[in-house]
């Protein structure tokens, strides 16, 4: 009975979403206050219904109700409770329900935190989000319903894919989806502003915190996915340029461009139609990612169950949402006037450079991802595009991006003088060149060109950020006063930029200085890797709730002193009979020790793989820096203050005058 109620709540949520999409939109166009006011309660009701629906599906998993087909396909009575709950989004249907739930959550939150926005703006924003929600809820209801039943119910379920039985993958999809769906808010603001003709500084200011929060979630989601791949897939890789990974990376790059472009739109009232286009692109790429992943047009390592009807549906959805928004853009954007002008050497130019590089990076990765599909559609043959292409095009774009990332925050709006910037950055230039060579040489004793470049631009960036902090505090009576007087947004930016440097160092050092050894070991054997002595103690049998395992134990010492004991397992999951390797990892800020066990080689010998990976944690640590910086920036006081301001600021008034 309960699953039917869940299904009913979902259908009801879809109809409410339709009303939320239509009524306030007409209300805003015709200026009918009652219809405008409908937006918020509709968003809240929709969300409550989705919570009920999602809660019931979760209950079905927790209570092992295998009469629900989706539960039977993705769970098992022996599955630990934690994974039974995460299995709710372990398959296609449930993950889409999660998507819809989060979308409803964002709508409800916008409804809650928009009390001081003009009512017709809120109405349009929620209406746009409602219309997108209708599409996705219909997708769930008509093609991917998680509440369908099995008659008669099977005795037990087929179990969750063992790859997904992991803490990293419990958190990864919700974070990623929060990011994906979060960009719908920036998108809805952009469309609402286009429709209402309110493409002004106020619009940019409202969009900024929402965009930043969505970006933070996406950052964390991508970092989690990469971390999971590193420890779970078992050969130390952390990024594969797989179509599904690219699907999450494309909106991230565009979203990053959007955050920066919004800053220009708010502060200088220029780049506005460009910013709107970026907001449309960012969300379109989220939808495109969903299409690529769910339709099966591209072969991917993620190997999701794909189904042509679903592909057609998502394509239709993509076509309508993006086509309509680009049509609105073509219709309304020509009326947007850019107010500010700027000199060639100014912060605007550096941010433009940021945007151009990020958008070009997005375009090249998109091209690489779609190229096999393009050739196939034109009947030019079939090919696959791999990491060599992506590395070759992406890295050269990121180097200049990081160089201007150092200069941008130091430069002035509107116009700057070259001698001033050169004076400030002369020492940074020298220090980064010198340290770029010295740091890798001191740490690893050998120097590679790419590592020197990576280290130099990271040092450059860190130096520039510190210089910026020092520079802005210098006029205050004391340095401490200066530090505390800066707004959170400034520190958010600085920390996020430092995060970029941290990630670059992590990528460079771990790619070039990792050590790997593969060998046959019998208990008692030992081997030195990177100054650590790995001693193979032996293997023992072990078993978990739904798997049996052979566990290898390796003791690590350094200069005779014990460091750690690593446990690596070869597991066989009993239901799906799938073998999995659990790597034994000793994580550290400056190095990871990583062992994985292979096949038995006879005579008590085992294939053992040992890694020494320097600085690999920095890759994800940088991601955390970026996310933390984003949170600081989004919680800046002025976003709370601006909500209280009733009188329009200069730029708003100007545009309001144009309109009337």
């Amino acid at each position, binding site marked *: 009975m309960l699953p039917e109620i869940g299904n009913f709540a979902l259908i009801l949520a879809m109809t409410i979403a339709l009303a939320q999409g239509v009524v306030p939109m007409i209300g805003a166009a015709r200026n009918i206050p009652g219809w405008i006011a409908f937006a918020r309660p509709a968003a809240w009701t929709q969300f409550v219904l989705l919570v009920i629906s999602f809660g019931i599906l979760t209950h079905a998993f927790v209570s092992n109700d295998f009469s629900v087909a989706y539960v039977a396909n993705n769970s098992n009575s022996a599955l630990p409770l934690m994974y039974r709950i995460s299995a709710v989004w372990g398959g296609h249907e449930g993950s889409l329900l999660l998507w819809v739930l989060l979308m409803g959550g964002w709508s409800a939150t916008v409804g809650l935190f928009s009390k001081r926005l003009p009512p017709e703006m809120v109405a349009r924003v929620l209406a746009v989000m409602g219309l997108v929600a209708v599409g996705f809820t219909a997708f769930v209801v008509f093609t991917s319903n998680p509440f369908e039943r099995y008659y008669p119910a099977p005795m037990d379920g087929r179990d969750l894919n063992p790859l997904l039985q992991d803490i990293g993958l419990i958190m990864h999809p919700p974070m990623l989806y929060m990011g994906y769906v979060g960009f719908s808010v920036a998108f809805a603001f952009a469309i609402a502003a286009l429709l209402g003709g309110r493409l002004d500084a106020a619009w940019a200011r409202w969009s900024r915190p929402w965009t930043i929060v969505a970006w933070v979630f996406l950052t964390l989601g991508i970092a989690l996915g990469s971390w999971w791949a590193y420890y779970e*897939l078992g050969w130390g890789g952390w990024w594969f340029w797989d179509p599904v990974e690219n699907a999450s990376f494309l909106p991230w790059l565009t979203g990053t461009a959007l955050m920066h472009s919004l800053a220009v739109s708010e502060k200088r009232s220029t780049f506005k139609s460009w910013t709107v286009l970026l907001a449309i692109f960012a969300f379109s790429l989220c939808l495109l990612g969903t299409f690529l992943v769910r339709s099966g047009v591209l072969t991917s390592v993620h190997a999701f169950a794909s189904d042509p009807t679903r592909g057609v549906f998502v394509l239709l959805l993509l076509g309508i949402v993006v086509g309509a928004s680009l049509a609105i853009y073509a219709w309304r954007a020509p009326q947007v006037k850019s107010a500010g002008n700027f000199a060639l050497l100014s912060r605007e130019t550096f941010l433009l450079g940021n945007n151009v590089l990020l958008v070009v990076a997005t375009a090249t990765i998109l091209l690489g991802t779609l190229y096999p599909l393009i050739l196939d559609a034109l009947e030019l043959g079939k090919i696959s595009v791999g990491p060599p292409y992506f590395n070759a095009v992406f890295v050269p774009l990121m180097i200049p991006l990081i160089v201007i990332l150092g200069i941008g925050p130091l430069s002035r709006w509107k116009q700057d003088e070259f001698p001033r910037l050169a004076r400030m950055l002369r020492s940074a230039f020298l220090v980064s060149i010198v340290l770029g060579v010295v740091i890798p040489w001191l740490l690893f004793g050998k120097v590679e060109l790419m590592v020197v470049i990576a280290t130099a631009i990271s040092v450059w960036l860190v130096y520039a950020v510190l210089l910026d902090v020092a520079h802005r505090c210098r006029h205050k009576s004391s340095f401490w006063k200066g530090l505390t007087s800066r707004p959170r947004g400034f520190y958010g930016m600085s920390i996020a930029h430092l995060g970029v440097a941290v990630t670059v160092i992590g990528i460079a050092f771990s790619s070039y200085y990792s050590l790997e050894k593969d060998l046959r070991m019998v208990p008692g054997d030992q081997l030195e890797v990177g100054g650590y002595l790995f001693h193979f103690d032996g293997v023992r049998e072990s078993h978990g709730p739904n798997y049996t395992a052979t566990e290898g134990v390796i003791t690590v010492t350094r200069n005779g002193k014990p460091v750690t004991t690593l446990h690596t397992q070869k597991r066989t999951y009993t239901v799906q009979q799938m073998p999995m390797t659990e790597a034994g990892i000793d994580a550290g800020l400056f190095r990871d020790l990583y062992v994985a066990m292979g096949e038995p080689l006879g005579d008590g010998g085992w294939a053992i793989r040992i890694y020494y990976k320097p600085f690999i944690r920095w890759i994800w640590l940088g991601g955390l820096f970026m996310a933390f910086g984003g949170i600081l920036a989004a919680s800046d006081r002025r976003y709370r203050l601006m909500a209280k301001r009733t009188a329009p600021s200069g730029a708003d008034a100007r545009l309001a005058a144009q309109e009337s």
Partner: protein
Amino acid sequence: MTKARFLIPLFLFLALIALFVVGLQRDPREVPSPLIDKPAPQFSLPELLDSNTTFSTADLQKQPVSLFNVWASWCVACRQEHPFLMELKRRGEVPIYSLNYKDKRPDAMAWLNRFGNPYTAIAFDEKGRVGIDWGVYGVPETFVVDRKGIIRYKQIGPLTEQAWQETILPLIEKIRAEEG
């Protein structure tokens, strides 16, 4: 004219949609290779595990029918497919040869050490030249080659029990019957 440039994104997007409509009608896993029922491309490559010996197209023609599996240590789907290949080896119905594609020797060997080696012999195609001749575009792929060196079937993506029972095993029996 100035207004027209705002239409550019829309037109680009429509072109993309047209592409997807075409793309959707083609299943990347099922489109047959142009090489089906054609002679297998000739090659001679070093053996992965023993670089002193070579592996060539002729080696595929020693039995009535052979499987030729393309894999790489960097390929996650190969890992998913791997237990099934081990199972096939255990059943011993047909020899499995393979092409290790665009890989590094230590990586590939470590992979086999860790997960087991289902292959009778492995050609090491470091640069991926032979893979291109064979029309490989997604790894893993598996070719069914008969004694005359004709490619009879190509499976794109991981081999599964279902594909095996429904398509490949009947084909193998048919080829064996042809030999009579």
